[in-house]
Each structure stands twice: as structure tokens, then as C-alpha cells.
């Protein structure tokens, strides 16, 4: 298993002048054998980052490295793609005209070409791995429930013997009762096989359950990054705190936001605000605390702050905090 590293990765859609920067100079490390959970609201660029990693979205800047070498080189050398992806919608992720066994077999590397008996055995093994009986390889996707389809999609991703798996909102289209089963499979497989994984979800509880490290994305940038316990236990960026506060809790009244930033709309990706991108919505920003004018003009950096929080007013990194 290898380490996946994004270095100053940017993805731009549309023309140079009127385009949108969906991912803006993102640095992100997914350490070998670890799960990095990527959270953020819709439009924050998390899915685009995932698609960029597997080559479905063209980079307009930066590099994506696997153990220090460009993914493309690794792919060419090994003769198979080193990254695999599992998609959100279990209904569009499998070809309705193909048996699930064929769908999985298609992803098994063709070099060296395995004998067809070997191929069948491998399909059976993969199905068993995700908790489906091996003898169901002949069924079509429409005979399966959403949760079962999502397991097949996972088996297909594993069939390519990838170095890294990218999971993009894989449980958000599932019922809660099924979500649990899929998350258990993901978690078990990850621990057994020491998979390196980028796990994207807008559900903080799900991310917390599956991940070792959490990265919070806002408006095309990573605004906070660190071990789960640190980021969720001691969040430094006000956006992370917002996300945490918004997680519904039974019996707790829905909290109110400070008036000036209540109901502020998410940023327009065509014209991100100047300075800190979060400042128009920030409950501790310039709209609430007028003396914090710096947020309007200067773009905060993550370096030097606890959890690499990209906020002018985040606590300093741990070493300094002790002293």
C-alpha cells in the first residue's frame, strides 16, 4: 500500500476567463494504509478532487503522486490503474446489461491475462470478500438492492488490485439500515488489507466512524486537516465547528446562528470572496466581530496552526501551545 499525495492540485472548469476553479491549489496527503475522510458541503470541490485523482477530471495545475511518483507513470509501469473509485449512485454505477460477475471481471487486470477459470475464481473470491455469495456472479444488477450493488461496486474496485481506493459518498444514497452494513464491509476490508483510502462524505458521523484522518474542504480548499480525534475533538476552523454544530442531535434544540451570518448563502464558485473565503459566513469573522478586518483582505494559511487550520485566529500548532 502506498501513500497518495496531492501537491498544489487545481481543477478548473470552463474557459480561462469565465471558468470556475473547483479545486484550488490543494495539498493533501493520504498516508499509506490510512483512511482520510474528506468532508465539506456540496460544491466544496471534494468530488472533483476525487475525480481528478482517478483521472476523470483534468488537472489545470499541480501533481498527484503515489509514493512520490506521478500516478500516470505508476499506471504505465504496472500496466493497470493504481487507483480505483467507488461511486455514489449504486443504480448508475453498474451496467444494467451485464451480470455483476462480468462487471467485476472487466476490472481484473488483463496483464498477465488470467485463464477464464482463474478469472471466475477471482470474481467469486471478491464477492465473498464483500459479503455476497460467490454463486450470485451471474445475476444482473436489477436483482440486487442498493446496498448489495454498492458492495458489488466495491468488489469491482478491489478487482483492479488498486494501491488506493477513492470512495465518493458511497453510502449517501442508501437507507440507514443498509448504510451500516456497507460501512462495516468497508471498515473490515480496510483493516484486513491495509488499504489506503480517500473516503468522501458530507456526513460527519460516517466520516468519523471510518476515517483515521479528517480533511475539511471549503470552497475548493482544505481548511483543516488532522487525526479524527484532534479535528473533531478540538476543531480550529470556524467552518469545522459549524459542521459539527449542524450534526443533528436528538433532544437538542436546533441551534441559532449569530444574526449577521445566519442564512448566509454558500460562496459563488465563480467569484469566491476576497480574503478568507469563509468570512461572509463566519460566526467569529468580520461580520460579527468588526475588529477582525484582516479576514476580509488576507487569505489565511494553514501552516503554523493547530490542525493546519486555514484561519487567522486558529490556535498555534501544538508545540507553541504547550509553552
Amino acid at each position, binding site marked *: 500500500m502506498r501513500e497518495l499525495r496531492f501537491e498544489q492540485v487545481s481543477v478548473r472548469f470552463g474557459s480561462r476567463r469565465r471558468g470556475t476553479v473547483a479545486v484550488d491549489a490543494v495539498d493533501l496527503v493520504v498516508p499509506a494504509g490510512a483512511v482520510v475522510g474528506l468532508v465539506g*458541503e*456540496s460544491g466544496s470541490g471534494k468530488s472533483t478532487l476525487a475525480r481528478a485523482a*482517478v483521472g*476523470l477530471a483534468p488537472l489545470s495545475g499541480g501533481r498527484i503522486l503515489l509514493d512520490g511518483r506521478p500516478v500516470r507513470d505508476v499506471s504505465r509501469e504496472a500496466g493497470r*490503474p493504481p487507483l*480505483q*473509485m467507488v*461511486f455514489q*449512485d449504486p443504480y*448508475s*454505477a*453498474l*451496467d444494467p446489461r*451485464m451480470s455483476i460477475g462480468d462487471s467485476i471481471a*472487466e*476490472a481484473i*487486470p488483463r496483464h498477465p491475462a488470467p485463464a477464464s477459470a482463474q478469472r471466475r475464481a477471482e470474481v467469486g473470491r471478491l464477492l465473498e470478500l*464483500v*459479503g*455476497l455469495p460467490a454463486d450470485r456472479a451471474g445475476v444482473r444488477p*436489477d*436483482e440486487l438492492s442498493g*446496498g*448489495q450493488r454498492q*458492495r458489488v*461496486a466495491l468488489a469491482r*474496485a478491489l478487482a*483492479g488490485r488498486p494501491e488506493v481506493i477513492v470512495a465518493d459518498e458511497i453510502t449517501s444514497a442508501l*437507507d*440507514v*439500515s*443498509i*448504510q*451500516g*452494513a*456497507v*460501512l*462495516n*464491509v468497508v*471498515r*473490515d*476490508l480496510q483493516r484486513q488489507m491495509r488499504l489506503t483510502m480517500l473516503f468522501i462524505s458530507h456526513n*460527519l*458521523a*460516517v466520516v*468519523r*466512524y471510518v476515517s483515521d484522518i479528517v480533511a475539511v474542504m471549503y470552497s475548493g480548499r482544505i481548511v483543516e486537516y488532522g487525526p479524527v480525534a484532534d479535528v*473533531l475533538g478540538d476543531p480550529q476552523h470556524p467552518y469545522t465547528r*459549524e*459542521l459539527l454544530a*449542524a*450534526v*443533528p442531535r*436528538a*433532544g437538542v*434544540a*436546533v441551534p441559532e446562528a449569530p444574526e449577521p451570518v445566519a*442564512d448566509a*448563502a*454558500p460562496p459563488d464558485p465563480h467569484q469566491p470572496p476576497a480574503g478568507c473565503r469563509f468570512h461572509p459566513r463566519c460566526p467569529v469573522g468580520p461580520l460579527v466581530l468588526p475588529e477582525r478586518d484582516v479576514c476580509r483582505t488576507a487569505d489565511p494559511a494553514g501552516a503554523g496552526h493547530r490542525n493546519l487550520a486555514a484561519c487567522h485566529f486558529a490556535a498555534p500548532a501544538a508545540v507553541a501551545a504547550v509553552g
Partner: protein
Amino acid sequence: MAGGSSRRWGRAVRSPLGVTAAVLLLAVLLLAVFAPMGWQARADAVHPADILQGPSGDHPAGTDLLGRDIFARVLVAARLSVELALAATGLGVLVGLLLGTAPLLLGRRAGRWAGALVNVAVAFPSLLLALFFAVVFGVGAKGAVLAIGLATAPAFARLTQTMAATVAGRDFIAAARIAGVGRVRILLRHVLPNIAEPLVVAATMAAGSALLAFAGLSFLGLGVQAPGYDWGRLLGEGLAQIYIHPAGALAPAVAVVLAAMAFNLAGEVVARAIGLRSAESGTPAGPVTAPPPRAAAATEPAAPLLAVENLRVTFPSLGAQISPVREVSLRLRPGEAVGIVGESGSGKSLTALAIAQLVAAPGRVDADRLEFLGADLRGGGAAAHRRLLGTSLAMVFQDPMTSLNPTHRVGHQLAEVVRRHQGADRRSAWARAVDRLHAVRIPAAARRARQLPHEFSGGMRQRAMIGMGLMASPALIIADEPTTALDVTVQREVLRLLENIRTADSVGLLFISHDVTVVAQVCERVLVMYAGRIVEDLPSGALLQDARHPYTRALVAAVPGMETDRDRPLAVIPGRPPDPARLPSGCAFAPRCPLATEVCREQDPPLAAYDGDRRVACHHADLAPVAVAPYRTTAGRDES
């Protein structure tokens, strides 16, 4: 699936249209194959004595200028006419497929050129194109085949291109690309099989059109040349004598019409069989019917806002009646928030639709009691009821993009509500719309009201939908998964808004969600639905710790929270919800229930009062939660 599709084919072919098409097509094809063998000699025999005879026993359609039997000639011409039409269609389909799939095969830049070529070609009228090609390729059958074939190609290419682009956008294509599958292989294995059926339909229809086009070209003298003849030529020859004896022109004309019809009808039948066109539409929605009143109507203290007793929604399905919602009874006081939770397919949304009288045909709603604001809603459809529901009931749906009309300004859509139900004039309706948008905290409401829905963010659209519900002064808001499509931060705003509206004006809220935590946060009372029934009715405070139905407990345990132990597997509910058409006998949850015993498999437990104001439908409601064996939670196979 295989059974379903063969059944659809059987039904489509056995329908009157299917029988007609099959008989016609068979007749045309048999004629094309065998007619020249049987009648060739007769068709070519020249009888100088019988020139230009009218119809008679010997010559049913008369004779032509050389005394040949026109009827025999029409029969014999079937082969050439059909052959040419099929050849032209084949050519058109081939060229069309190549052009249409070029964008997929050639990559982005070259594909764009192929697309542009198709666009330009589609813009030319095809008959004009055919005439043009006929001149280029020379007058004659070969030229005409090329002409009509190439004229068919652009439309076919456009169809292929559009459908291929739709399929290519789906995730399984992306997955294949990530797996390193080549373009040609993706096209052959993934794209073509998924668009084949509509293409077959289009090709069949195109054959019919080609037949007509050939008749046209030959008639004009641009198609088949003497001594060969097809229907078009026969028609041209016959037309010269139409005033002397019309049968000579009518016979080939009828042949052309019947053959073209055979192809087009066959296309139509194929389309029906594979489900591109809807078959017969269902019977109109039955009104809510009132069964004979039962002896003891329950009495109660204060008039409730909403009272539902024994609600049942029935759909006809393959001869049987299935009831996805059964025995639902619930009651809402003004200002009360009641939640309904359950998995998809549990009947929670259908319950909401039935209450709002929105169950579509051929569904049927029955209830012992269905009262809203004291008015009996059974008996359905009355204008007074529509008005009552229109002004006093607000519905909020999951996807705000599909519940707002994308072509109308948001303000107009809101204003329309009061204009329709209260006859307000345009200006005051607009003012009210802006006011309501302001009330749901949409910034710059006056400006936003003039915008189209796509200019709103998801959260704003949902707020606009709520604003639409507030145009009148509703007494009840039914919100069906209103925040499922939204981000958590936006969800919080919408929930807060609903909460504020509810407390400020004492509006009742029926909140439907699959998310137990959200329901527990928003509602005072929670109804848990399973397989169409309410299985538990409890205060939301008891939901997390003291639920009595094993299903409720399983549902709660399955949701990871911010305190879930990360080192233990999540609880899962083994098995899957029952199909409403095949409910198990006894308790519907028994096959998945860790507490199930003999009695559960035999008797469906009634929804009985429990501990004062709670209700639960379980034979083992008294078993304390601690006594429940924990759900086995490994990555057990096949439980979802």
C-alpha cells in the same frame, strides 16, 4: 426481469395493434420473398389485345399500356421495393451509427467535428438531400439507395449521439474507464447494448419512411428505371390513366401504404414492448371511499388538526391488490410536530400523499376517518376540499429543484398560489410572495423573487418551497424528507425555519424522514413505520433509549452518531424489508427480528396502547432493551 420483459413482449404482440402489425409485416415480407416466383411470368406477359383494360375477373386491377396484369406487377414489385428500402435503411443506420458514436470513439476534439457535421446534416430536409444525392449519384436504383440511405443517416446519427452521450455520462462508464477499458470496448460492451432497443425501433420506423421515399423518387422518375419496376414506378404509370381506370394507380398506392404501415406499426409495437411508450394508461384515481361507519367511533376531547383512522392505500398490481400503506392511524394537534420514520418502501411518503389527497391513479385511498380541520376529506375531489387543502395545508418535498417549475420566476410561482385559491390580484399576490420569501429568510427577497429556480442554491430553493406553503396561512405543514438532499449546515437552517414557523403560528408539522436523529431533534412524537404499518408511536425523548419495538431499536442502533464506538462494527438489520405484494404471515418484521418466537410468525400484533400514551405493535414489547441480544454485526453476508 427476464420474465417481466417476455411478459411485456407477449402483451404487446397480443394487443390489437400488435396483431395487426405482425400480420401486415409478415404478409409484406412473404410477398417480397415469394411473389416473384409465383407471378413473375404473369406480370411480364405482354397481351397486346388487352391494353388498358379496367378491372375484371382475369385482371383484378386492370392492365397497363402493354396489356400486362397490373395486380401481378404490384405483387412482384414488392421484392424490389422492400429490398431497396431495407438496403437504404441499412446504409443509413450504418453511417448514422458511425457518425453518432464518433464523439465517443475519437475523443473530445475530433468528436466535436463529427458532432458539428451531424448538426449541419440534420438541418437539411431529408427529401431535398435525397434529390440532391440522386442528381450526384445518377438517376437509377443504386443512386436512389445511396441518396435515401445518406438522407436517413443524419437523424439516426443524432439519435445515437444523444443517447450514447446520456449513457456515457453514467458512473459505470467512468468505472470502466478507470479500470483501463479501451474506447472501442466501452462502446461495444457498455454503450451499444444500453441504447440498442430505441435504435431498433428507430431503424424499423426508418424502413417505413424509406419505402415511402423510394415510392416518391421512383414516381418522380429519379428512382428505379425501366424495365425494372417498383411500386413508385407503377404508381407513376398508373397515374397517367387515373381518369380512365383508377384501379391501375390505386393498387400500387395501397401496396405502398400498407407496407409502410407494416413497418411503422412494427416499430410502434417494439417500442411498446420494450417500454419506450406507455401502454394503456391506468384507470382514473378512485376517490377516497368511506366504508360503512363502524359502530363505535372513538370520541376524544379537543378537535384535532388532523385525525386519520385506519388509512389504507391500495394499488392494483398484476391482477392482485397490494396495500403499501395499511391500518395507519394518527392524530395531530395544532402546533404539534409529529415525525414518521422508516426505511424506503415503508410507506411513510405514501401516507403523507394520501393525507394530502395526492395519491395518483390507479392508487386508491380508503379510511375509516380522514379529517383535517374538522372537514371530512373522504369522498374526494370536492372543490371545497381542494380549496381547504390548497390554503391550509403546505407540502414540502425532498427535491426542491423538481418541485419548482424551472421556467417560471420563483415569485410568480409563489404568487400563483394565492391568485388561484384566494383570487388575489396580481400586484398584491406579488407583494405577498416577496413578503413570504422574506419570512423564510431569503436575503434580498424582492430581487430574488424575480429570479428563476436554478439561480437559487439548494437551501434557498427549499426555503422558497416552504415560503410557497406559507402563502396562505397553513394549519399543517407536511414535510417529506425536506432536508435529505441538503448539506448539514443548510439542513440546520431549514429545520430552524420550520421550527420557528411552527411555534410562532401554532402550525402542525408532519415530518417524514429516514433519519431518526433528525426526527428526534425536530419532533415531539415519532411514528415508526415498517412494511406499511405504524409499528410504534412514542415520544421522541424515548426514541433513543427506551424504544419498545425491536425494529425501532435496530433503526436507532444502525445510525452512526458522533459518540459511536469506532472500534466496534455498526449494528445492522439482517435481511431486507418485505415486498408489499408478499407480506409474511404474522408480524412483518419477524423474519428479521432477534426476538421473534412462534407467536410472532403466526399472529400480526395489533398496535396496542402501551404505558399510557404510547402505542406499540409487538408481542414482546415488555422485554427490556437490555435483555435484547445485540444485533450480530460482522460484515455478515447478504443482509442488505
